[in-house]
Protein backbone atom coordinates (compact mmCIF):
# COMPACT_ATOMS: atom_id res chain seq x y z
CA UNK A 1 0.00 0.00 0.00
CA UNK A 2 2.71 2.40 0.97
CA UNK A 3 4.66 1.27 -2.02
CA UNK A 4 2.04 2.32 -4.52
CA UNK A 5 1.71 5.67 -2.86
CA UNK A 6 5.42 6.19 -3.08
CA UNK A 7 5.29 5.36 -6.77
CA UNK A 8 2.52 7.88 -7.16
CA UNK A 9 4.44 10.59 -5.39
CA UNK A 10 7.50 10.00 -7.50
CA UNK A 11 5.44 9.96 -10.67
CA UNK A 12 3.60 13.14 -9.75
CA UNK A 13 6.89 14.82 -8.94
CA UNK A 14 8.20 14.13 -12.41
CA UNK A 15 5.00 15.33 -13.99
CA UNK A 16 5.26 18.59 -12.09
CA UNK A 17 8.88 18.82 -13.16
CA UNK A 18 7.86 18.38 -16.77
CA UNK A 19 5.37 21.18 -16.46
CA UNK A 20 7.90 23.46 -14.85
CA UNK A 21 10.41 22.65 -17.57
CA UNK A 22 8.02 24.18 -20.04
CA UNK A 23 6.56 27.00 -18.04
CA UNK A 24 9.72 28.40 -16.50
CA UNK A 25 11.69 28.86 -19.73
CA UNK A 26 8.66 30.50 -21.33
CA UNK A 27 8.48 32.93 -18.47
CA UNK A 28 12.22 33.52 -18.67
CA UNK A 29 12.08 34.21 -22.38
CA UNK A 30 9.36 36.80 -21.95
CA UNK A 31 11.16 38.37 -19.01
CA UNK A 32 14.48 38.59 -20.86
CA UNK A 33 12.89 40.25 -23.84
CA UNK A 34 11.04 42.73 -21.72
CA UNK A 35 14.04 43.46 -19.57
CA UNK A 36 16.46 44.01 -22.40
CA UNK A 37 14.06 45.29 -25.01
CA UNK A 38 12.02 47.80 -23.06
CA UNK A 39 14.89 50.27 -22.67
CA UNK A 40 15.08 50.57 -26.44
CA UNK A 41 11.46 51.50 -26.81
CA UNK A 42 10.90 55.18 -27.21
CA UNK A 43 8.99 57.32 -29.61
CA UNK A 44 12.00 57.67 -31.87
CA UNK A 45 12.51 53.94 -32.11
CA UNK A 46 8.96 53.39 -33.15
CA UNK A 47 8.68 56.18 -35.67
CA UNK A 48 12.12 56.57 -37.21
CA UNK A 49 13.61 54.72 -40.16
CA UNK A 50 16.67 52.54 -39.70
CA UNK A 51 19.90 54.47 -39.92
CA UNK A 52 23.59 53.69 -40.24
CA UNK A 53 22.96 50.43 -41.99
CA UNK A 54 20.28 49.54 -39.45
CA UNK A 55 22.61 49.84 -36.52
CA UNK A 56 20.70 52.85 -35.24
CA UNK A 57 17.47 54.65 -35.76
CA UNK A 58 14.10 53.00 -35.63
CA UNK A 59 11.93 50.30 -37.07
CA UNK A 60 8.99 52.27 -38.35
CA UNK A 61 8.98 50.89 -41.92
CA UNK A 62 9.03 47.37 -40.57
CA UNK A 63 6.06 48.06 -38.31
CA UNK A 64 4.09 49.61 -41.14
CA UNK A 65 5.05 46.82 -43.52
CA UNK A 66 3.86 44.21 -41.06
CA UNK A 67 0.56 46.04 -40.58
CA UNK A 68 0.01 46.24 -44.34
CA UNK A 69 0.78 42.55 -44.80
CA UNK A 70 -1.45 41.44 -41.97
CA UNK A 71 -4.30 43.62 -43.14
CA UNK A 72 -3.94 42.31 -46.67
CA UNK A 73 -3.84 38.74 -45.47
CA UNK A 74 -7.09 39.07 -43.56
CA UNK A 75 -8.88 40.82 -46.43
CA UNK A 76 -8.18 37.74 -48.47
CA UNK A 77 -8.56 35.04 -45.84
CA UNK A 78 -11.61 36.19 -43.88
CA UNK A 79 -14.27 36.18 -46.63
CA UNK A 80 -13.07 32.94 -48.18
CA UNK A 81 -12.50 31.29 -44.81
CA UNK A 82 -15.84 32.40 -43.43
CA UNK A 83 -17.77 31.19 -46.47
CA UNK A 84 -15.86 27.91 -46.38
CA UNK A 85 -16.81 27.56 -42.72
CA UNK A 86 -20.45 28.31 -43.59
CA UNK A 87 -20.31 25.62 -46.22
CA UNK A 88 -18.94 23.06 -43.77
CA UNK A 89 -21.31 24.02 -40.97
CA UNK A 90 -24.56 24.61 -42.84
CA UNK A 91 -24.50 22.93 -46.21
CA UNK A 92 -22.19 19.97 -46.34
CA UNK A 93 -23.28 16.43 -45.67
CA UNK A 94 -21.28 13.59 -44.21
CA UNK A 95 -19.85 12.27 -47.46
CA UNK A 96 -16.58 11.82 -49.27
CA UNK A 97 -16.33 15.44 -50.37
CA UNK A 98 -16.72 16.56 -46.79
CA UNK A 99 -13.91 14.28 -45.61
CA UNK A 100 -11.73 15.47 -48.45
CA UNK A 101 -12.27 19.10 -47.50
CA UNK A 102 -11.46 18.42 -43.85
CA UNK A 103 -8.35 16.52 -44.87
CA UNK A 104 -7.26 19.42 -47.05
CA UNK A 105 -7.68 21.84 -44.19
CA UNK A 106 -5.56 19.64 -41.94
CA UNK A 107 -2.93 19.54 -44.64
CA UNK A 108 -2.93 23.27 -45.27
CA UNK A 109 -2.44 23.74 -41.55
CA UNK A 110 0.55 21.45 -41.57
CA UNK A 111 2.42 22.71 -44.62
CA UNK A 112 5.80 24.08 -43.53
CA UNK A 113 5.89 27.86 -43.67
CA UNK A 114 8.89 27.88 -46.00
CA UNK A 115 6.93 25.76 -48.48
CA UNK A 116 4.27 28.46 -48.44
CA UNK A 117 7.08 30.83 -49.30
CA UNK A 118 8.02 28.69 -52.28
CA UNK A 119 4.40 28.47 -53.35
CA UNK A 120 3.95 32.21 -53.09
CA UNK A 121 7.10 32.71 -55.10
CA UNK A 122 6.05 30.31 -57.84
CA UNK A 123 2.42 31.40 -58.11
CA UNK A 124 2.22 35.08 -57.25
CA UNK A 125 5.69 36.45 -57.84
CA UNK A 126 6.60 34.49 -60.96
CA UNK A 127 3.48 33.03 -62.58
CA UNK A 128 1.09 35.94 -62.01
CA UNK A 129 4.01 38.31 -62.36
CA UNK A 130 3.09 40.33 -59.31
CA UNK A 131 6.76 40.38 -58.38
CA UNK A 132 7.98 40.60 -54.81
CA UNK A 133 5.26 42.81 -53.43
CA UNK A 134 2.82 43.41 -50.63
CA UNK A 135 0.25 41.79 -52.88
CA UNK A 136 2.23 38.56 -53.21
CA UNK A 137 3.09 38.53 -49.53
CA UNK A 138 -0.45 39.18 -48.35
CA UNK A 139 -1.92 36.52 -50.59
CA UNK A 140 0.66 33.99 -49.42
CA UNK A 141 0.04 34.80 -45.76
CA UNK A 142 -3.69 34.73 -46.42
CA UNK A 143 -3.61 31.17 -47.71
CA UNK A 144 -1.43 30.21 -44.76
CA UNK A 145 -3.91 31.45 -42.15
CA UNK A 146 -6.94 30.11 -44.00
CA UNK A 147 -7.09 26.89 -41.94
CA UNK A 148 -7.19 28.89 -38.69
CA UNK A 149 -10.04 31.08 -39.91
CA UNK A 150 -12.02 28.14 -41.27
CA UNK A 151 -11.64 25.99 -38.17
CA UNK A 152 -12.49 28.63 -35.59
CA UNK A 153 -15.34 30.06 -37.65
CA UNK A 154 -16.82 26.62 -38.17
CA UNK A 155 -16.74 25.92 -34.45
CA UNK A 156 -18.42 29.25 -33.79
CA UNK A 157 -21.16 28.54 -36.32
CA UNK A 158 -21.74 25.02 -35.07
CA UNK A 159 -22.14 26.25 -31.51
CA UNK A 160 -25.34 28.07 -32.45
CA UNK A 161 -28.10 25.66 -31.35
CA UNK A 162 -29.82 23.72 -34.09
CA UNK A 163 -33.21 24.62 -32.66
CA UNK A 164 -32.79 28.24 -33.74
CA UNK A 165 -32.33 27.14 -37.31
CA UNK A 166 -35.38 24.93 -37.14
CA UNK A 167 -37.51 27.72 -35.77
CA UNK A 168 -36.37 30.13 -38.46
CA UNK A 169 -37.05 27.65 -41.24
CA UNK A 170 -40.44 26.73 -39.81
CA UNK A 171 -41.45 30.38 -40.16
CA UNK A 172 -40.78 30.19 -43.88
CA UNK A 173 -37.35 31.82 -43.94
CA UNK A 174 -34.88 30.51 -46.48
CA UNK A 175 -31.64 28.77 -45.54
CA UNK A 176 -29.52 31.77 -46.38
CA UNK A 177 -31.83 34.12 -44.47
CA UNK A 178 -31.48 31.85 -41.46
CA UNK A 179 -27.70 31.94 -41.75
CA UNK A 180 -27.54 35.66 -42.29
CA UNK A 181 -29.97 36.73 -39.58
CA UNK A 182 -29.73 34.07 -36.91
CA UNK A 183 -26.60 31.95 -37.21
CA UNK A 184 -23.95 34.46 -38.26
CA UNK A 185 -24.78 37.23 -35.77
CA UNK A 186 -24.57 34.78 -32.91
CA UNK A 187 -21.28 33.34 -34.11
CA UNK A 188 -19.49 36.65 -34.47
CA UNK A 189 -17.48 36.52 -31.21
CA UNK A 190 -16.04 33.14 -32.17
CA UNK A 191 -15.33 34.32 -35.68
CA UNK A 192 -13.66 37.42 -34.32
CA UNK A 193 -11.48 35.32 -32.02
CA UNK A 194 -10.32 33.19 -34.93
CA UNK A 195 -9.64 36.22 -37.07
CA UNK A 196 -7.44 37.84 -34.46
CA UNK A 197 -5.56 34.59 -33.87
CA UNK A 198 -4.97 34.42 -37.61
CA UNK A 199 -3.74 37.99 -37.62
CA UNK A 200 -1.31 37.18 -34.83
CA UNK A 201 0.03 34.23 -36.72
CA UNK A 202 0.45 36.21 -39.94
CA UNK A 203 2.28 38.99 -38.12
CA UNK A 204 4.93 36.64 -36.75
CA UNK A 205 5.78 34.54 -39.77
CA UNK A 206 9.04 35.07 -41.64
CA UNK A 207 9.51 32.25 -44.13
CA UNK A 208 6.42 32.94 -46.25
CA UNK A 209 7.48 36.54 -46.78
CA UNK A 210 11.15 35.89 -47.44
CA UNK A 211 10.80 35.52 -51.18
CA UNK A 212 7.47 37.15 -51.71
CA UNK A 213 7.72 40.60 -50.25
CA UNK A 214 10.41 41.18 -47.70
CA UNK A 215 12.88 43.90 -48.43
CA UNK A 216 16.23 44.01 -46.74
CA UNK A 217 16.26 47.74 -46.46
CA UNK A 218 13.69 50.16 -47.74
CA UNK A 219 14.08 53.66 -46.38
CA UNK A 220 10.80 54.92 -47.74
CA UNK A 221 7.41 53.46 -47.03
CA UNK A 222 5.76 51.31 -49.72
CA UNK A 223 3.54 53.39 -51.97
CA UNK A 224 1.38 50.67 -53.49
CA UNK A 225 0.57 47.00 -53.13
CA UNK A 226 3.05 46.23 -55.86
CA UNK A 227 5.92 47.54 -53.79
CA UNK A 228 8.14 45.52 -51.56
CA UNK A 229 8.06 46.22 -47.87
CA UNK A 230 10.03 45.65 -44.73
CA UNK A 231 8.47 43.54 -42.03
CA UNK A 232 9.17 43.03 -38.32
CA UNK A 233 9.98 39.30 -38.33
CA UNK A 234 12.31 39.59 -41.28
CA UNK A 235 13.89 42.70 -39.84
CA UNK A 236 14.64 40.89 -36.61
CA UNK A 237 16.21 38.07 -38.57
CA UNK A 238 18.31 40.45 -40.60
CA UNK A 239 19.67 42.49 -37.72
CA UNK A 240 20.41 39.33 -35.76
CA UNK A 241 22.24 37.41 -38.45
CA UNK A 242 23.03 39.47 -41.51
CA UNK A 243 24.21 42.78 -40.11
CA UNK A 244 27.15 42.72 -37.74
CA UNK A 245 27.57 44.97 -34.72
CA UNK A 246 23.98 45.95 -34.26
CA UNK A 247 23.45 47.31 -30.78
CA UNK A 248 21.99 44.64 -28.54
CA UNK A 249 19.36 47.11 -27.40
CA UNK A 250 18.01 47.47 -30.94
CA UNK A 251 17.80 43.74 -31.44
CA UNK A 252 15.97 43.17 -28.22
CA UNK A 253 13.83 46.19 -28.90
CA UNK A 254 12.72 44.78 -32.24
CA UNK A 255 12.04 41.41 -30.67
CA UNK A 256 10.05 43.17 -27.97
CA UNK A 257 7.87 45.05 -30.43
CA UNK A 258 7.17 41.93 -32.45
CA UNK A 259 6.44 39.82 -29.40
CA UNK A 260 4.28 42.52 -27.85
CA UNK A 261 2.28 42.84 -31.06
CA UNK A 262 1.67 39.12 -31.37
CA UNK A 263 0.95 38.50 -27.70
CA UNK A 264 -1.37 41.48 -27.56
CA UNK A 265 -3.42 40.08 -30.41
CA UNK A 266 -3.60 36.68 -28.79
CA UNK A 267 -4.62 38.23 -25.50
CA UNK A 268 -7.43 40.17 -27.16
CA UNK A 269 -8.64 36.98 -28.82
CA UNK A 270 -8.62 35.07 -25.54
CA UNK A 271 -10.51 37.85 -23.77
CA UNK A 272 -13.18 37.91 -26.48
CA UNK A 273 -13.54 34.16 -26.25
CA UNK A 274 -13.85 34.32 -22.48
CA UNK A 275 -16.41 37.14 -22.49
CA UNK A 276 -18.44 35.31 -25.10
CA UNK A 277 -18.57 32.14 -23.03
CA UNK A 278 -19.65 34.06 -19.97
CA UNK A 279 -22.35 36.10 -21.63
CA UNK A 280 -23.94 33.46 -23.78
CA UNK A 281 -27.62 34.03 -23.54
CA UNK A 282 -28.87 30.55 -24.27
Amino acid sequence: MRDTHRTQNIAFFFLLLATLLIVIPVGLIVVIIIQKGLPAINWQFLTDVPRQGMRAGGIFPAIIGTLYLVFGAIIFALPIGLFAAIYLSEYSRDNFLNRLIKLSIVNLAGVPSVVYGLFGLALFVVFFKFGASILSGSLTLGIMILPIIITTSREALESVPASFREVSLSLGASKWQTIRHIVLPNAIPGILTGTILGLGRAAGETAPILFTVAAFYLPRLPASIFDQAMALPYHLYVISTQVPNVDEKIRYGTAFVLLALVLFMNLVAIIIRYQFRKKKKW
Partner: protein
Amino acid sequence: MVKFAANNLSIWFGSKQVLKEVNLDVYANEILSVIGPSNSGKTTFLRMLNRLNDLQPNFRMSGEVKLEEQDIRKIDPEALRRLVGMVFALPLPLPLSIFDNVAYGVRMHGLRDKEKLSAKVEESLKQAHLWDEVKDRLNESAFKLSGGQQQRLCIARTLAVEPGVILFDEPCSGLDPISTAKVEDAMLQLKENYTVVLVTNNVKQAARVSDRTAFFLSGELIEVDSTDKMFTAPLDKRTDGYIRGKFG
Protein backbone atom coordinates in the same frame (compact mmCIF):
# COMPACT_ATOMS: atom_id res chain seq x y z
CA MET B 1 -63.31 20.59 -46.83
CA VAL B 2 -60.14 18.58 -46.71
CA LYS B 3 -57.07 20.64 -45.91
CA PHE B 4 -54.42 17.87 -45.82
CA ALA B 5 -54.74 14.41 -47.25
CA ALA B 6 -52.12 11.79 -46.43
CA ASN B 7 -52.36 8.73 -48.67
CA ASN B 8 -50.38 5.58 -47.93
CA LEU B 9 -47.73 7.68 -46.26
CA SER B 10 -44.68 5.73 -45.10
CA ILE B 11 -41.54 7.33 -43.70
CA TRP B 12 -38.09 5.91 -43.04
CA PHE B 13 -35.10 7.44 -41.29
CA GLY B 14 -32.24 5.39 -42.62
CA SER B 15 -33.33 1.79 -42.35
CA LYS B 16 -35.83 2.40 -39.58
CA GLN B 17 -39.44 2.71 -40.67
CA VAL B 18 -41.24 5.26 -38.56
CA LEU B 19 -44.61 5.55 -40.27
CA LYS B 20 -46.46 2.72 -41.98
CA GLU B 21 -49.03 3.35 -44.70
CA VAL B 22 -50.83 6.16 -42.92
CA ASN B 23 -54.09 7.36 -44.47
CA LEU B 24 -55.36 10.43 -42.66
CA ASP B 25 -57.26 13.57 -43.68
CA VAL B 26 -57.18 16.88 -41.87
CA TYR B 27 -60.30 19.01 -42.32
CA ALA B 28 -60.27 22.75 -42.61
CA ASN B 29 -61.00 24.75 -39.48
CA GLU B 30 -60.94 21.81 -37.15
CA ILE B 31 -58.71 20.98 -34.25
CA LEU B 32 -57.32 17.51 -34.87
CA SER B 33 -55.32 16.03 -32.05
CA VAL B 34 -52.86 13.21 -32.58
CA ILE B 35 -52.29 10.98 -29.57
CA GLY B 36 -50.25 7.89 -28.87
CA PRO B 37 -47.31 6.65 -26.80
CA SER B 38 -43.79 7.88 -27.51
CA ASN B 39 -42.20 6.62 -30.72
CA SER B 40 -45.59 6.07 -32.25
CA GLY B 41 -44.74 8.35 -35.17
CA LYS B 42 -47.04 11.19 -34.28
CA THR B 43 -44.38 13.90 -34.28
CA THR B 44 -42.96 12.54 -37.52
CA PHE B 45 -46.41 12.80 -39.05
CA LEU B 46 -46.79 16.36 -37.82
CA ARG B 47 -43.40 17.42 -39.15
CA MET B 48 -44.31 15.95 -42.53
CA LEU B 49 -46.99 18.56 -42.92
CA ASN B 50 -44.48 21.43 -42.98
CA ARG B 51 -41.68 19.31 -44.44
CA LEU B 52 -39.36 19.76 -41.49
CA ASN B 53 -38.46 16.12 -41.92
CA ASP B 54 -36.58 17.14 -45.05
CA LEU B 55 -33.90 18.58 -42.79
CA GLN B 56 -32.99 15.13 -41.49
CA PRO B 57 -30.17 13.65 -43.55
CA ASN B 58 -31.52 10.12 -44.09
CA PHE B 59 -35.19 10.86 -44.52
CA ARG B 60 -37.13 8.83 -47.07
CA MET B 61 -40.84 8.64 -47.82
CA SER B 62 -43.34 6.85 -50.00
CA GLY B 63 -46.98 7.68 -50.66
CA GLU B 64 -48.10 11.26 -50.80
CA VAL B 65 -49.35 14.19 -48.79
CA LYS B 66 -51.56 16.79 -50.40
CA LEU B 67 -52.31 20.28 -49.22
CA GLU B 68 -55.64 21.18 -50.84
CA GLU B 69 -55.10 18.90 -53.82
CA GLN B 70 -51.46 19.88 -54.33
CA ASP B 71 -48.67 17.40 -53.60
CA ILE B 72 -46.59 19.14 -50.94
CA ARG B 73 -43.39 17.83 -52.42
CA LYS B 74 -44.09 20.00 -55.41
CA ILE B 75 -44.56 23.13 -53.32
CA ASP B 76 -41.45 25.18 -52.54
CA PRO B 77 -40.64 24.42 -48.85
CA GLU B 78 -40.34 28.11 -47.96
CA ALA B 79 -43.76 28.83 -49.41
CA LEU B 80 -45.23 25.77 -47.70
CA ARG B 81 -43.91 26.82 -44.31
CA ARG B 82 -45.48 30.22 -44.76
CA LEU B 83 -48.81 28.45 -45.08
CA VAL B 84 -48.19 25.91 -42.34
CA GLY B 85 -46.80 27.24 -39.08
CA MET B 86 -45.46 25.32 -36.10
CA VAL B 87 -45.23 25.75 -32.35
CA PHE B 88 -42.61 23.52 -30.76
CA ALA B 89 -42.55 21.53 -27.56
CA LEU B 90 -40.09 23.65 -25.65
CA PRO B 91 -40.56 27.39 -25.83
CA LEU B 92 -37.95 28.44 -28.36
CA PRO B 93 -37.63 32.17 -28.62
CA LEU B 94 -35.02 33.36 -31.04
CA PRO B 95 -32.12 35.29 -29.49
CA LEU B 96 -33.81 38.58 -30.30
CA SER B 97 -36.06 41.11 -28.62
CA ILE B 98 -39.74 40.34 -28.10
CA PHE B 99 -40.69 42.63 -30.96
CA ASP B 100 -38.10 41.16 -33.31
CA ASN B 101 -39.19 37.64 -32.46
CA VAL B 102 -42.74 38.27 -33.52
CA ALA B 103 -41.69 40.31 -36.52
CA TYR B 104 -39.06 37.81 -37.68
CA GLY B 105 -41.11 35.70 -40.05
CA VAL B 106 -42.88 38.65 -41.60
CA ARG B 107 -39.61 40.53 -42.05
CA MET B 108 -38.03 37.57 -43.81
CA HIS B 109 -40.93 37.53 -46.21
CA GLY B 110 -40.18 41.08 -47.22
CA LEU B 111 -42.26 43.38 -45.04
CA ARG B 112 -40.12 46.36 -44.07
CA ASP B 113 -42.54 49.16 -43.37
CA LYS B 114 -42.15 50.00 -39.67
CA GLU B 115 -45.73 50.98 -39.07
CA LYS B 116 -47.12 47.87 -40.68
CA LEU B 117 -44.67 45.74 -38.71
CA SER B 118 -45.69 47.35 -35.44
CA ALA B 119 -49.34 46.84 -36.23
CA LYS B 120 -48.76 43.21 -37.12
CA VAL B 121 -46.76 42.55 -33.98
CA GLU B 122 -49.43 44.09 -31.79
CA GLU B 123 -52.22 42.16 -33.50
CA SER B 124 -50.39 38.84 -33.19
CA LEU B 125 -49.50 39.38 -29.55
CA LYS B 126 -53.13 40.16 -28.80
CA GLN B 127 -54.27 37.01 -30.55
CA ALA B 128 -51.86 35.02 -28.41
CA HIS B 129 -53.11 36.70 -25.23
CA LEU B 130 -49.69 38.15 -24.51
CA TRP B 131 -50.00 41.80 -25.49
CA ASP B 132 -50.93 43.23 -22.12
CA GLU B 133 -48.02 41.55 -20.40
CA VAL B 134 -45.33 42.74 -22.79
CA LYS B 135 -46.57 45.89 -24.46
CA ASP B 136 -44.26 48.08 -22.42
CA ARG B 137 -41.15 46.05 -22.95
CA LEU B 138 -41.14 45.01 -26.55
CA ASN B 139 -37.44 45.75 -26.90
CA GLU B 140 -36.36 43.49 -24.09
CA SER B 141 -34.78 40.15 -24.79
CA ALA B 142 -37.30 37.39 -25.24
CA PHE B 143 -35.36 35.25 -22.79
CA LYS B 144 -36.56 37.43 -19.94
CA LEU B 145 -40.08 36.07 -20.23
CA SER B 146 -41.34 33.13 -18.22
CA GLY B 147 -41.80 29.74 -19.86
CA GLY B 148 -45.51 30.22 -20.41
CA GLN B 149 -45.02 33.70 -21.80
CA GLN B 150 -42.30 32.48 -24.12
CA GLN B 151 -44.59 29.82 -25.51
CA ARG B 152 -47.33 32.36 -26.16
CA LEU B 153 -44.65 34.51 -27.81
CA CYS B 154 -43.90 31.60 -30.10
CA ILE B 155 -47.58 31.35 -30.94
CA ALA B 156 -47.71 35.08 -31.69
CA ARG B 157 -44.63 34.70 -33.87
CA THR B 158 -46.30 31.96 -35.86
CA LEU B 159 -49.58 33.86 -36.16
CA ALA B 160 -47.83 36.95 -37.52
CA VAL B 161 -46.99 35.07 -40.69
CA GLU B 162 -50.71 34.39 -41.23
CA PRO B 163 -50.51 30.71 -42.07
CA GLY B 164 -53.71 28.81 -42.74
CA VAL B 165 -52.63 25.88 -40.61
CA ILE B 166 -50.91 25.78 -37.27
CA LEU B 167 -49.15 22.65 -36.02
CA PHE B 168 -48.64 22.25 -32.29
CA ASP B 169 -46.00 19.77 -31.19
CA GLU B 170 -46.72 18.97 -27.52
CA PRO B 171 -46.78 22.70 -26.79
CA CYS B 172 -47.57 22.46 -23.11
CA SER B 173 -45.08 19.80 -22.08
CA GLY B 174 -42.88 22.24 -20.21
CA LEU B 175 -45.59 24.46 -18.82
CA ASP B 176 -47.43 24.81 -15.53
CA PRO B 177 -51.24 24.27 -15.43
CA ILE B 178 -52.11 27.96 -15.64
CA SER B 179 -49.93 28.57 -18.67
CA THR B 180 -51.27 25.36 -20.17
CA ALA B 181 -54.83 26.64 -19.76
CA LYS B 182 -53.90 29.90 -21.46
CA VAL B 183 -52.33 28.08 -24.41
CA GLU B 184 -55.39 25.83 -24.73
CA ASP B 185 -57.68 28.86 -24.70
CA ALA B 186 -55.64 30.40 -27.46
CA MET B 187 -55.92 27.19 -29.47
CA LEU B 188 -59.70 27.09 -29.15
CA GLN B 189 -60.00 30.66 -30.37
CA LEU B 190 -57.74 29.96 -33.33
CA LYS B 191 -60.16 27.41 -34.68
CA GLU B 192 -62.31 30.08 -36.26
CA ASN B 193 -59.67 31.18 -38.70
CA TYR B 194 -57.13 28.38 -38.72
CA THR B 195 -56.79 24.65 -39.06
CA VAL B 196 -55.03 23.21 -36.04
CA VAL B 197 -53.22 19.90 -35.70
CA LEU B 198 -52.12 19.14 -32.16
CA VAL B 199 -49.75 16.38 -31.12
CA THR B 200 -50.09 15.75 -27.43
CA ASN B 201 -49.02 13.27 -24.78
CA ASN B 202 -51.79 14.46 -22.55
CA VAL B 203 -54.90 12.49 -23.39
CA LYS B 204 -57.10 14.74 -21.31
CA GLN B 205 -55.87 17.77 -23.21
CA ALA B 206 -56.95 16.11 -26.45
CA ALA B 207 -60.38 15.50 -24.93
CA ARG B 208 -60.67 19.14 -23.81
CA VAL B 209 -59.63 20.84 -26.95
CA SER B 210 -60.05 18.86 -30.16
CA ASP B 211 -62.87 18.09 -32.57
CA ARG B 212 -61.37 14.88 -33.89
CA THR B 213 -58.67 12.65 -32.47
CA ALA B 214 -56.29 10.29 -34.23
CA PHE B 215 -54.54 7.47 -32.36
CA PHE B 216 -51.12 6.31 -33.51
CA LEU B 217 -49.30 3.23 -32.31
CA SER B 218 -45.87 2.04 -33.49
CA GLY B 219 -46.05 4.05 -36.69
CA GLU B 220 -49.56 3.04 -37.68
CA LEU B 221 -52.76 5.01 -37.56
CA ILE B 222 -55.03 2.80 -35.50
CA GLU B 223 -58.15 4.87 -35.39
CA VAL B 224 -59.43 8.37 -36.10
CA ASP B 225 -62.87 9.71 -35.21
CA SER B 226 -64.69 12.56 -33.54
CA THR B 227 -63.29 13.17 -30.08
CA ASP B 228 -66.53 12.37 -28.35
CA LYS B 229 -66.75 9.02 -30.01
CA MET B 230 -63.06 8.16 -29.45
CA PHE B 231 -63.30 8.82 -25.78
CA THR B 232 -66.62 7.10 -25.13
CA ALA B 233 -66.82 4.24 -27.57
CA PRO B 234 -63.61 3.63 -29.54
CA LEU B 235 -63.72 0.85 -32.09
CA ASP B 236 -60.25 -0.60 -31.48
CA LYS B 237 -59.42 -2.00 -28.09
CA ARG B 238 -55.88 -0.66 -28.30
CA THR B 239 -57.33 2.84 -28.54
CA ASP B 240 -59.43 2.08 -25.54
CA GLY B 241 -56.46 0.74 -23.61
CA TYR B 242 -54.33 3.80 -24.31
CA ILE B 243 -57.03 6.31 -23.49
CA ARG B 244 -57.74 4.63 -20.22
CA GLY B 245 -54.09 4.70 -19.33
CA LYS B 246 -53.61 0.94 -19.45
CA PHE B 247 -50.36 1.47 -21.35
CA GLY B 248 -48.18 4.16 -22.84
